[in-house]
């Protein structure tokens, strides 16, 4: 089976610091893979390299058959194919403040894919309905709650129907009830065949919704496997450190 994402031995540095020191990871269509690690472990750097927002020095990144070359990020004109294959949900959501929820979701369909406004609005309405935020269609981003903004950001990233969806710390602004509701939504997306790579340090969320977990520490994947194997049984020091980190301490 061809992978939606295939990352091999990727090294990346930011300034004098080598943040990624040979990361290898893959995600299959229909699979939810969670990239775990404490702050500074390199999760966000990895996601940004895959989304061609940050450079990497060596190794290979192949998304849905499109190979990104090491070195500086290429100009947008060379990334058309990648942009169609990868959607990204930012930790801060980064919704377009001057556009309504509906316009946030239709923007790429109309301007990047050249759809008519009617067709784009039909598609966006369907997506927002699936994600349970269709009633907020006319609202502007600053009027949304954290959970609503998260769903609108997912709808915006999903609109061009990417093979691979990247989510950076999607649970950071959500209370436990909303985390599990978000998890259900992500499950549904995987069931439709999307590949999901999610960075998180939320152990409960990973145990409940990940198909596979990769633990990143000091720029390398130290453990990889099913959530149960890794999160309850690992004896690896870095994994234990992750479990002890403040946001994962019971009770929540």
């Amino acid at each position, binding site marked *: 089976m061809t992978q939606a994402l295939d990352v091999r031995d990727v090294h990346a540095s930011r300034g004098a610091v080598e943040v990624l020191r040979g990361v290898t990871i893959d995600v299959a269509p229909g699979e939810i893979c969670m990239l775990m690690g404490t702050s500074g472990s390199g999760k966000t750097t990895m996601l940004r390299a895959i*989304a*061609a*927002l940050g450079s990497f020095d060596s190794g290979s990144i192949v998304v849905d058959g499109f190979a990104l070359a090491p070195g500086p990020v290429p100009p*947008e*004109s060379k990334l*058309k194919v990648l*942009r*169609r294959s*990868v*959607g*990204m949900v*930012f930790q*801060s959501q*980064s*919704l*377009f*403040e*001057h556009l309504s929820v509906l316009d946030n979701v239709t*923007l*790429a369909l109309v*301007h*990047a*894919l050249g759809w008519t406004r009617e067709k784009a609005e039909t598609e966006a309405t369907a997506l927002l309905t699936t994600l349970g935020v269709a009633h907020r269609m006319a609202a*502007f981003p*600053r*009027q949304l709650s954290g959970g609503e903004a998260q769903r609108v950001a997912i709808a*915006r*990233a999903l*609109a*061009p129907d990417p093979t691979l969806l990247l989510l950076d710390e999607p649970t950071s602004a959500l209370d436990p009830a909303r985390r599990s509701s978000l998890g259900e939504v992500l499950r549904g997306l995987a069931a439709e065949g999307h590949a999901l790579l999610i960075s998180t340090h939320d152990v409960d969320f990973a145990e409940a919704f990940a198909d596979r977990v990769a633990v990143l520490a000091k720029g390398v994947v130290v453990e990889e496997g099913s959530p149960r194997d890794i999160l309850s049984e690992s004896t690896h020091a870095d994994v234990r450190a992750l479990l002890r980190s403040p946001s994962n301490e019971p009770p929540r």
Partner: protein
Amino acid sequence: MSSFVLGACSPANGAHAPLRWGGDAEGGAPFVEADPADPAKVRGFDVEIAQMIGHDLHRDPLFVQVAWASIEASVERADFSIGMSGVEDRPELRARHAVSIPYFEFREVLAVRFADSARYRTLADLAGKRVATLGGTGAYQMLLDAQPHGGPIPISYDDDVHPYSDLVAGRVDAVLLDNIIADRSLRRTGGFFIQRVPVETGSYVAVLAARDTALRDSVNAILRARMRDGSLEKTFRAWHVWDTTQTAYFARVLDDSARARAAGAIASVRTVRSYLPALLRAAGITLLLSCLAMVLAVGVGIAVAAGRVYGSPLVRAPLAVYVEIIRGTPVLLQLFVLYYGLSGFVRLPAFVAAVLGLGLNYAAYESEIYRAALQAIPRTQLEAGRTLGLSEAQILRLVRGPQALRLALAPMTNDFVALLKDSSLVSVITVVELTKQTAIYATNVGSWVVPGILCSLIYLALSLPLSRLARALEKKWSSV
């Protein structure tokens, strides 16, 4: 005789083209002033002389308003054919331009406070004292020449009203100017003494472009004829400048002083209605000028800001130089350079030069606003656009630009209101806008009170709606 001269020259010149002549109505009576009966027209002895010249040349005289200090530069760049507004004959004028024969002889007289009338009789009495005059005049040159030899300290003014008010207020010790200006100030404000013995005599001439010697010769012939037949004397008598003895002159001044002031106050109220249409027309010029300049400033400003944010170093460097030069030099200087400095290469009409000068000046400030606004948009907004597959141009147009515009709106409105007021500077390049028209009006009625209030009200009426509109837009955008 005059008809013989005309027969010789006017058919060759294209007989019926209007005769454009320039003067400064802000200089006021008796030279050139707005006609209180019809402020769109001018009157004064220079106006009547222009009418005589026009009549004898079979050409309709057409008045062009120009700042007094710019008459020589404007005549050389062909804004008009003849400059006449109390222009003083002096050697440098003759060296650079074609100059007519003198048509009026005046005396440079010293004005002093009553208490000093016995002490300060000549320039020599004023050694080391402050003596005021109008910049760029023969009197100023005389003071400059006398200074190194233990003479007075010259104080230069841009108008001929403040030297006298400062004399009365004690800021200067004497004023050296034409007896005509001194006489007028005495009638208008009073409170000082004019020494009878003139310091020097001088004369008024018409100035023409150096190449216009044929027209100059015709003007000379006309002036001689008019001197001979008595019509010039009649005009000067009509304007009360044909004084023969200094004794009679002083007596008449004291007599006129009180009456002129009372009449001036009544006239200023009565003439509001007759001046209002002229002020409103001038306000229209101010508004049109400001709007066109702002459109230019916004367009160029956006282009410069985009170039500085997105361009290569090769693009950024010249744009940065442009912005720094514009911001680092006075807009007045830029207007002078654009209008007079470039007149050898490109002769811009005054209004076009005004729009270009103000527009390109404000463009530099606008570009800095837009640049700051563009840079204030968070990087993740741009990255979100990229991950959605938008091109850089689309991100600028759909994401970064619209958000930056909202940030830029308040400072932009401030700038437009400032531009509305800065547009008054273009009067230095002969455009008569609201402030200049007000100054002409004020000189005419001899008071700034009523014209000043009217002018302020019009400026407020123009700028207040703008500020309100901007506040409404900001409120709308911040509430969503």
